[in-house]
């Protein structure tokens, strides 16, 4: 059912095309920067605006997590999404997809390997960034854990998987990698706009980006958290299924 050799080829491709390097460097960079910014924000503002007298509250380890979630769900995720949107569109454009599909690799296997490969790339990036950020937060604030941290990480990871499925969807329907990247970015913007409405947020597969801070400050309800979790899983499955249905009927 699942072609492991094609997945290995995908992973080799991530190394060869520097995608793995980009994700590792980007996620690590912001994992270091987030706790540092949270810890020294007051000092930085004081340095930049010496004449202005503003008294800021003393930063806590929670500010480090706020920064981490903000950076991960914006810049890191957008770069990952753009990288992933090229995944099918690039092969269609170069014509290399024909070689793969004629080598006994079914269309489902092709698409599913892309999804698993992308998910692995994201998981590696997230695990490293969480470890690095956790270490820096511990050094700077001497506190890391809060109630709901593991659930937040799970939600963040699942949202990443949803965006992986969405990137593949954009890549399947677009003719060129540039169009796929634009579609992916437009989708990211729309899913984030849906988060403005608190009623829609929990049903949004990308609702986690707003819910993470609510979980951190213990202002979200258990039912909202669970609904968001289920919506993200359903959103991922539906988006991937839709991509496959379109890809199956597509003339290449």
């Amino acid at each position, binding site marked *: 059912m699942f072609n492991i050799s094609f997945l290995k080829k995908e992973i080799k491709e991530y190394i060869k095309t520097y995608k793995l*390097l980009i994700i590792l460097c980007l996620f*690590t960079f912001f994992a*270091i920067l987030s706790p540092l910014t949270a810890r020294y924000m007051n000092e930085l503002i004081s340095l930049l605006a010496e004449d202005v007298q503003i008294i800021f509250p003393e930063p806590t380890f929670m500010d480090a997590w706020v920064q981490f979630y903000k950076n991960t769900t914006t810049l890191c995720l957008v770069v990952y999404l753009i990288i992933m949107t090229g995944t099918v569109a690039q092969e269609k454009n170069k014509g290399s997809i024909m070689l793969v599909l004629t080598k006994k690799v079914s269309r489902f296997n092709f698409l599913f390997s892309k999804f698993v490969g992308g998910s692995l790339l994201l998981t590696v990036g997230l695990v490293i960034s969480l470890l690095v950020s956790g270490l820096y937060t511990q050094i700077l604030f001497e506190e890391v854990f809060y109630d709901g941290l593991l659930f937040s990480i799970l939600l963040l990871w699942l949202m990443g998987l949803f965006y992986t499925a969405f990137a593949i969807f954009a890549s399947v329907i677009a003719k060129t990698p540039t169009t796929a990247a634009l579609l992916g970015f437009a989708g990211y913007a729309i899913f984030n706009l849906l988060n403005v409405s608190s009623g829609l947020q929990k049903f949004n597969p990308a609702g986690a980006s707003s819910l993470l801070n609510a979980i951190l400050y213990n202002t979200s309800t258990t039912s909202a958290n669970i609904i968001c979790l289920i919506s993200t899983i359903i959103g991922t499955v539906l988006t991937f299924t839709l991509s496959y249905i379109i890809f199956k009927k597509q003339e290449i």
Partner: protein
Amino acid sequence: MGLDLIELLPLLIPLLVVQLTLQIIALISLWKRETVRFDNKWIWVVIIVLGTLLGSIAYFILGGETHENGSED
């Protein structure tokens, strides 16, 4: 309230290492590449050096040459 850079240095070094690693690899890749988008390698040198981490990422994502049929490397 002030920033003690000497005290901060051990925490900042890994940040600089990550950034410089990506920039150096991007510059090596650019040097080895025969053709680039915009047909001007110096534009990409400026983007990689001045654009720091994001400049290097922009090079890796967008720096590939564009073929006549509109496809990208």
